[in-house]
């Protein structure tokens, strides 16, 4: 057997920009997924699905535009697909509480607080939750969030205000 070599060096250079940028975004994408999905396992399945789509759709990515907005859009569409296909298959998502305390350090108090926020978020209709997730969790400006969701600004703000009022009512005493 002759000496080994690394055969992929060229490819590594060619791919570095796109995939490194995605890799750097991954923590934020996981955070967004966690706000959309009901538990950490579903959230990471969602991430995987979105990353597969992003890799497939790499050609449609325009360098110089915002990759985070592009990925949020892919992830949000993946979430809709995932929810639909599970509905068709008659599967239900795991209960929010089932995964709520996974991966969290801290005592019982932290876990209780965590499930409270999660439960409040998941009581929202999807369209309000995604608006809340983009603006309050991901920190997008209204205009950016409206673009990701492909809705007019007025629609975004009305979803956001309704979602927030519901959250404030539910979490009121602990805010």
């Amino acid at each position: 057997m002759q000496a080994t070599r690394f055969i992929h060096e060229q490819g590594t250079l060619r791919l570095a920009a796109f995939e490194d940028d995605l890799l750097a975004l991954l923590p934020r994408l996981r955070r967004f997924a966690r706000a959309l999905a009901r538990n950490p396992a579903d959230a990471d399945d969602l991430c995987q699905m979105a990353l597969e789509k992003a890799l497939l759709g790499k050609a449609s990515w325009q360098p110089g535009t915002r990759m985070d907005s592009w990925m949020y859009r892919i992830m949000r569409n993946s979430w809709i697909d995932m929810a639909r296909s599970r509905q068709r298959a008659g599967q239900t998502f795991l209960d929010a509480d089932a995964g709520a305390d996974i991966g969290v350090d801290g005592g019982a108090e932290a876990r209780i607080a965590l499930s409270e926020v999660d439960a409040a978020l998941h009581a929202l209709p999807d369209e309000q939750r995604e608006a809340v997730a983009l603006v309050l969790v991901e920190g997008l400006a209204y205009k950016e969030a409206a673009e990701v969701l492909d809705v007019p600004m007025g629609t975004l703000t009305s979803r956001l205000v309704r979602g927030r009022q519901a959250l404030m009512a539910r979490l009121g005493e602990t805010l």
Partner: protein
Amino acid sequence: MSIDPALLMAYADGELGPIEAKRVERAIAADPALGEEVARHRALRARLDGHFAAVAQEPVPEHLAAMLRPRVVELPARRRTVRMPAWAPWSGAVAAALVLGLFVGKGLPEQGVVRTRDGQLYAAGSLAGALDQQLAANGGAVQMVVSFRDREGRYCRVFRSQPADGIACHEEKGWALRQTMGGSRASTSGYAQAGSADPALMAAAQELMAGDPLDAAAEARARAAGWK
């Protein structure tokens, strides 16, 4: 003065221009309840921000990160001096070195994951399914090590599994098994470990390969196109 709830929210988020912001500030000065509402909006943002900050700080799961890392596959150097005829890639010294039964499928069960057609062995069942669907980044009962195109432009994939490791190339009739060897490296748990395949198998892949192995994006595209 009445203030629309959406306007108040936008003020709390710093989304208003200076003129609108002034208008809201005047209304807040006249009505402390509006100021409290603004404080609640900001408290909610801080609460969600704090809640999800931990997620962004968690280490990213390896199976997700691996999808984005260009796969560096360690392969033996291609032999430049001896070019095997395409019709007999496994003849002679190479085949001997590989300790392979030529399409005999030693160690491969005769049914389940293999079928024969016109004297050729094809992947079937769960193996065919994994070859069709599984990307190299994802583990499972069958592990995809690397995908590539051979000199005829066919997509080929190196796989590892409990019954057998091998190379399968996509043809009209399915995944033709070009190479199999007993899955000696597969773990007893039935879950193939990621990582290096048998060096002999990788040498065989290297001989078949035209160009470089597929990167993650190319592999996903090939899968989407049905490996054609």
